[in-house]
Structure formats: structure tokens, C-alpha cells
């Protein structure tokens, strides 16, 4: 059995004021596995994603990606880990308005110092594969919400990350578009071989995952 891409060990996190969001949280995610995390609002789902991404720090416990403990890295080290090993999909898309679609998608590549022309070519190819052929030079203002989320998905996968973190990726979309995006998400993530953590309120969205977990104050528990 392959070592886990992501390993969370006895994580504890509280918020200012002392309220404990969760403690004793453990999770291993295998390569290629898609895990959905559900839970009520305010339970700490986004905080958990921030901890996994190295954007926030736990009170105690550990986060390891590809066997590297994030606690052992400084801020720059955690940043480089995100740059090279993690892809992100956000509810609000976060596509930069003044870059072209290809430039938006190519950002993770050029941040790794890959040549701009090569990065753009790869971005153009992946845009075509997710249903946006011949749109590489367009600006984000010309796209619908569903199209913007496709671009975000392309950006999350363009650098072939080991782990994709998706925070409510269909939260801003109508049901029909959301279903199409989910199908695309699963197909592309599985095609890339990456593991994925999908944080969602939607049971329909969670249903595409290999495992569904509920986040509670006591940690992650299997749902259903």
C-alpha cells in the first residue's frame, strides 16, 4: 500500500476566545482518493483546509504532505509546498481579472519558474481539455460562473499536484452547472492521479467522493 499523500495526526485547533473547533483529529488520504468533508457552518471546515494548506497553524498535532511535516517548515517552506504539491479550487473562483484565462491557469507553473511560453501552452491545452478551447486569450469578465470554475479547476491541476483542496467548489453555481462541474472535477482529478479533499455542504456534491466524513468537535467521523 502506498504511503498517504496527506496525514493529519491528533490535530487540535481553537479560535481566539478559547472555543475549541476540534481536537484529536486524525486522517490519512491515499493517492488518488477523493475525500468529502461535511459539517455545519462554523464547525471549522475551512479552518481545517487552511491547516492542511499551511495557511494556518494548529494548537497541537501534525500535518504531513507526502511525508513532510508542515510544522517543520518555515513560512517560505510551507509556501513552496503549496506551490509544488497542492492545487486549490475556491467557491468564489478567484480568477484574476486583469490576466487572460491562459495566464490565470499558468500561474502555478510560472511561480515554479517554468518558462512563460511553455506554461501558457500547457495552460491552453488543459483549458481545451475542460471544455474551453480557443478561449486562452479571453479575459475573465467574458465568462459565466460555470466557465470561471472550469478555469479554476484547470489552474488547480495544471502543475500536477499531489493534493487538490476544494472549498465549496459548487457553492456559487446553479444546480445544473454545479452537477456538470462536479463531474468534470472528479474526472480531471482522477485523471491526474491526485488526491482531493472536497469541503461541501451539499450531499449531492459529497456523493462523488470515495469517502464522506463529518467534521465535529470530536474530530472526523464517517457519514452514512
Amino acid at each position, binding site marked *: 500500500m502506498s504511503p498517504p499523500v496527506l496525514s493529519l495526526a491528533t490535530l487540535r485547533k481553537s479560535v481566539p476566545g478559547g472555543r475549541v473547533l476540534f481536537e484529536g483529529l486524525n486522517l490519512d488520504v491515499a493517492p488518488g482518493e477523493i475525500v468529502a468533508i461535511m459539517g455545519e457552518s462554523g464547525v471549522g471546515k475551512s479552518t481545517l483546509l487552511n491547516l492542511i494548506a499551511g495557511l494556518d497553524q494548529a494548537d497541537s498535532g501534525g500535518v504531513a504532505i507526502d511525508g513532510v511535516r508542515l510544522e517543520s517548515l518555515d513560512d517560505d517552506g510551507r*509556501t513552496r509546498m503549496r506551490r509544488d504539491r497542492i492545487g486549490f479550487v475556491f467557491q468564489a473562483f*478567484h480568477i484574476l481579472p486583469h490576466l487572460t484565462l491562459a495566464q490565470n491557469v499558468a500561474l502555478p507553473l510560472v*511561480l515554479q519558474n517554468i518558462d512563460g511560453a511553455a506554461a501558457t501552452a500547457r495552460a491552453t491545452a488543459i483549458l481545451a481539455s475542460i471544455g474551453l478551447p480557443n478561449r486562452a486569450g479571453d479575459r475573465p469578465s467574458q465568462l459565466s460562473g460555470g466557465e470561471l470554475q472550469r478555469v479554476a479547476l484547470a489552474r488547480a491541476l495544471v502543475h500536477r499536484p499531489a493534493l487538490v483542496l476544494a472549498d465549496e467548489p459548487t457553492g456559487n453555481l446553479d444546480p445544473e452547472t454545479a452537477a456538470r462541474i462536479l463531474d468534470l472535477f472528479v474526472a480531471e482529478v482522477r485523471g491526474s492521479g491526485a488526491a482531493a479533499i472536497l469541503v461541501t455542504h451539499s450531499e449531492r456534491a459529497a456523493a462523488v467522493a470515495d469517502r464522506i466524513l463529518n467534521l465535529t468537535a470530536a474530530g472526523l467521523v464517517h457519514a452514512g
Partner: protein
Amino acid sequence: MPAERRPLSRTALTWMMVGEWRAHPGRVITAALAIAIGVALGFAVHIINGSAQNELAQAVRTVNADADLQVHATTPLGFDETLYPALARAPGIVAASPVVELSARFGTGPSRSLEGGGLTLLGIDPLRAASVTPTLLSQGASPPIEGAGGFVPESLFDPRAIMLSQAALAASGRKVGEAVTITAAGRSVDFVVAGVLSGAASEQQIAVLDIATAQWLFGSLGRLQRVDLKFSPGANPATVEASLRDRLPADAQIVTAQSEARRGDNLTRAYRANLEMLALMALLTGGFLVYSAQSLSVARRRPQFALLRVLGLERRGLLAQVFVEGALVGGVGAALGLALGLGVAVGTLQFLGGDLGGGYFRGTTPDLVVTPLPVLVFFALGLVAALLGSLLPALEAARAQPGIALKDLGDKNDPNAKPAAWLGLALLAAGGGAAILPAVRGLPLFGYLSIGLMLAGGVAAMPWLARVLITPLQRVGRRNVSIDLAVKRLWGAPDQAAVALCGIVASTSLMVAMAVMVASLRGSVDDWLTEILPSDLLFRVESGGFDAEARARIARAPGVGDILFQRTLPLRLASDMPPLILLVRPVDKAKPMASLPMIGRSAEAPEGVTPVWLSEPAARLYGHKVGEQMVLPMGGGNPQVFVAGIWRDYARQSGAIAIDQADYTRLTGDDRRTEASLDLKPGTTSVSAAQAIRAALPPEMAAQVQFFETRQMRAIALRLFDSSFALTYALEAIAIVVGLAGVAATFSAQTLARTKEFGMLRHVGVLRRQIILMLATEGALLGAVGVVSGLALGLAMSQVLIHVVNPQSFHWTMETRLPLPLFASLAIALVAAGAGTAVLAGRRALSADAVRAVREDW
């Protein structure tokens, strides 16, 4: 395995910057222009000063030529010529060349300008001069001149021959071989132009003739103004100088190349330094505008930067991006500023002259001198101003927590947090402390440091001050939702208000400080002119002077009432200082305030000691106080005089000493007077009195008398004042334009960044016109806060200019006067600009539909 560290991605930086600039070119251009204007002003002033100084140094080198040492007369009256053989025989001297030096002009009538003809007449012994000061007589590499038959030194022995520098030849309108009339010491003489002095500086008007001819024709028999000396080979200059010093009478002093250079430097150093500091203040304002632009840009892009951090851009990458943006803005602005500055310098030299209207090198247009070092320094200054302006925004961008910033969709300000005042107040206090420190080498460096600290303090205190000023409005209950929203927003986000205000406050306060200083000086000069020009008519003879008989004839002329004669002549107190003016006139020793605009106490001179009254600049420059004794180097003796009082004088920056006419005549034997002021008898006009006075004088002297009505004189003086401050007025105008551009850029950026907020307000039912009114109120309130803060800070800085910078630079004091109409115009302009810009930007922001605005992420 941890990911490897890689260099920053240039592609990512380029994409982000190009994208940002393409989206908001106006903001980038405004910031670059602000830097360009600052660099242009500083660079232009610097190279104009450098060109003028170069011209002055060249002029000194030509006139003084190659002498190792010179002995100069302390006044134009000269010293006894028997000193010449004594100097020529002195140990360590191998050659000596006697010189008669007179102020002269072409033609016979009175000079059309108040400053005289600008021609220096040198009487020399050609053989002696050829060995001591050969450069003066060299042919050099002069362009061929039509009619020039070659340089013939022997021609100087011809009593009708005169050699002219190229500038003098051009001013005379004659050619070599033609006749020319020259007037000096009250006498007009016809000469033939025998040749051209090519060694003279390009703008210097010099005429050279034989010394015996000069003494004979211009009534200077037995007197010399200068002796040029050459050391024996191997002589120790210090020893020779010391031994000569012991042999000199009081009306002669030693001048070296170094002391001449210092004198030239002292003449204009304060003026130059002040202009350069003013120009650098404009650059500082540019730096604040870059700060405003970058802060707003960073605030608007906070979520974008957060995304980049999430995607893997390291902190230093973000820091680099904001810094590189600032550096490019600074680099482009500085390069533009250098080109602009060069153009301004060329134009200014052409139209205002090398002294920028200051009146130091009147009549000359120096050649432009540009060296690489100032180009590099001013480019670097522009770059540094932009980088400093980008520093805080860059640090703020790099410090932000990406996870939080990514979801930050609105104001992150906590309205309940109280803005800190300590840093601003501490800087203001430090500024106040620096103001009381003394000058450094005659320059008010601490005065300018004080202004810089006050400016920084004022800007740092802006969040606190904005809160303090808005709080009373916040407490007032209102029914108008637009105005209520506007006041609540400004009160709750003082940091954002401060970012918008810092450029405005910087430019407004500098402008107010300058305006108060100039208005105070102009008002004081105006009062002073009224005090010193109480008569109806003034007249003067340019050279020679009225003897006792001429004065008696004038006093008896029809229509002439009370009349006061005086004489002014330059007097050198120290060889490395510019000459001051000796003012010879009747002074009531018991009541000097009846004769001079006295300041402070007067003292009675001890029995047997001659009293003098020093002008304020003379007292400050030479460090004399009332009641002290000093040496007045004139008249061949070494008279000790008593400082009996200090009087106000704005006309002579190098200082003046007033002496009663009877004492002057007793000390020097000189009974001539060159100027007079008179009251007209009832029914007499200025014209008829002038005609009567001319009729009373010998025809040759009558032709040289110039008349001025007091009213005309005051107008000329104030015109000269305005000309001197022409550049200051230009800087003020530029400060206003830069300030208003800052208002436009910052308000526009802040308004456009709030598109989402406007969308939300439209969703909940706020009318479009209500949002426009809200924005207009915010803009007007910000403008008003800027005016109040800028006025307060500017008034404080003006007191440093008035009570520290001016006395330390120019050695005069003045009373504060407030240009209230200018303040009112400024207040209206800033409030209107604030409201107008906010409304215009608001219309643009509201043009997007409300639904899209709320959904928009950035």
C-alpha cells in the same frame, strides 16, 4: 522531501504588473508624473545653480587672472598708489601688476537699469600684466570677429585705444577699429576699439586700457583699486601673505583665489541651498503621492495577493512585486523628470538668468553645464522617493495572512479601534526641537530637518487627526441617509482617509508654509519701503558724485523742498565675504530712529569713538552686537567704530553699515554724494523739479542724473521682489497642481475600489443619487479635513521658515502675515476637487449593474 527554493518568477511578476498597469494606467501615470515633477525641479535648479556658479568662477578667474595673490581696496575709492612699489619690493614677490578697476558703461546718458552698466573697466600696465596675469591679455581660441585685425598689445599704449571682451564688444554694438564712448567716475571718454580680449568669460563685459590713461581720464590719479602679485619661485605663500598683511593700510586687504571662491560661494550659497531644498520638498510630495497610490493599489489587490500567496508565491516575492512596481514608477518618473528638468533649465536660463530672478548675476546668461554626477544623483533621488513611498504598502502586502485576506471582502477596519497619535506627535515635537538648533556653516540644515520632521509627523498623525475632526460630526443626529453614511464611513475608517489625505496634506502644507513666508516677507518689505522712502523724488548720479557746490545748487533749485544727500559704496570687511554697502547719510545720533528703521535698543557711542549703525544682515553675518566696537577699514587709517544700533534692511543681503556723513568725510576726506531724496514744494511736479535740478548742474553731470519717483521706486522694488520669488511662485503653483492631482487619483482609486459596497447599497434600496450625494459628502469632508490639517501644519512650518530658515540664510527677520484670500481659494479648490472627483469616480463605479457589482470578487 521539502520543495526546493527557486528564484522569484519574473514571468509571474511581469504578468501581474503589466495586467495591473493596463487596468489602471491613470494611477501609474499620476504617480510617475509626481516623481517626474519633483526630480525635474530639483535637477533644473541644481544645474542652473551649477551653470551660474561656473560662470561666476570663470569670471573671477578672468578678472583676477593668474595672480598668486591680490591686494584689493576695501572700497571703490581705492588705496594710495605708493603701496604698489612697497608690495613689488616685498620679500617673496617676483612681480607686481597695478590695476585701476572702475564700474563703467557704454555711452554718455544715465544707465537705463538700476543696476548700472555692467562694464568693468580695468586700467593695467600691459608689460607688468603680461608677466603676472597673462590670461587676461591672451588671445585664446576666440572665433574670428569681423574687422578684427589681430590682437596688438602695443596698442594699449595708445591713450585712445581700448580692448574689449567679446561680451563687451557685443554690448557696445561696435566693431574693432570703431569709436566707442565709455562713462566711468562721472566722466565720458571716446576710445577706439583696438582688439578683443578672448580670455574673458563668455558673458563678462570687460574693457582694458593703459593704467596711466585710466587714472588721468577718469580722475583716479594716485589711486589704485588692486595690485596683482606673483610669488618668487620657492617662496612660502603663507609666510609671504603674513608679511604683506603687516604692510597693508586699513583700506587694502589681501585676496587669494580661495577667499575669492568663498566670497562667490557665500554670495549665493544660502539662496541656492534654499531653492534646492524647496525643489526637494516637491520630490518629497511626489514620494507621498507614490505612497498614496501604492497603498490604495495594495489595499484593492489584497485578495489578489492573498491568492498568489495561496498558490505559492513567497512573502519576498510579494514584497519584490510591490517594490519593483514602485521602482519602475520611480525610474520612469525620474528619467522623465531629468528630461523635463533639462528643458526647464534651458528655458529658465534663457528667460530668468542664472540666478533664477534672484538678482545675483544680473545681465548674464550662463552656458548650461551638465555633469554625470547630478544626473545620477537626481535619478537615484527619484527612485528612492518612489521606493520609500512603496515600502510601507509592500510590507503591509507581505504581512497579510493569505487565508484571511482571501476571504476579506470588505473593510477590515475596526471602527472602535482608536488611531494612535504618539508617533505623529513625537515627530512633530522632534521637528519643533530641531527648529531651535543653530545653522550649520551658514545653512539652516536643522530648519529644513525640522520641516521634514513636521511633515512626517503631520502625515503620521493623520488617522488620529481625521478621527478627531470627524468625531463632532459623527455625534450629530441626521435625517439624511447619504450624509449619515458618509460621516460614519470616514469616522470608522480613519486609516483609509489618512492614505487619501497624506499626499494632499503634504502638498497643501508646503504650499501654505511657502505662501505665508512670501506674504510675510513681501508685506514687511512693503512697510519697510514706506519707511525708507518717505520723500517725493529720488535721484542719483551713477559715478563721480555731487560735490558741495553741486549740492548747494541743487538745494537752491526751484521747487526743491527738504533734501537729503547720501552716498553708497561697497566696502569689503573680509576678503572671503561679499562686500557690504557703506551708507553715508545724515544720522541723528541722539534719535537714530528718525533717520533709519531701527530694530531694538540703541546705545550712545563713547566720547571720541565714531558711531555706526549696522543693518540686520550685517550684524548677523559679522556677529556684531549693539555696544561693541569694530574696525572700519577705510580712509587709510584703522578707525575703531562703535555699533550704536541695528536697523532693518531688506535690500542688501550682504549687509550695510550706516555712518553719519560728517564722520565719513572726516575719516576719508571724500565729500561727494551720489544719491538724494527730496520733498517737492507745494505746486511743484516731479518733472519740473527734475528739469530745475538738471538746469542747476554742469551739462556733463546733468546728463548722468537719473530721477525716480518714490511711487515708481516702490513699484520697481516690489517688481524685483516678485521676480526674485518667481520660482517660488512657480513651485507653489506646481504644489497646488500636484496636490489636486493627488486628490483626484486617491479619491478615484478609493471610490472605484468600493464598487461592491455600492452594489449592496443599491440592492437594499439606496437610490443612485443618494450614493452620489454620499460620495460627494465624503469627498468634500476629506477635502475639508485636508485643508484644516494642511493649514495647521503649513502654518507651523511657515514659522520655521520665517523665524529659523530666513534669519539663518538671509539674516533678516519679518512679521508673520497670512494671505487669507489664498487660503480661502485653496480651501474652496480642495473641497470642490474632493467632492467633484469622488462624484466622477462614483458615476463610473455605479455604471456597472448592481447585481454584477455584488458578485464581483475584486
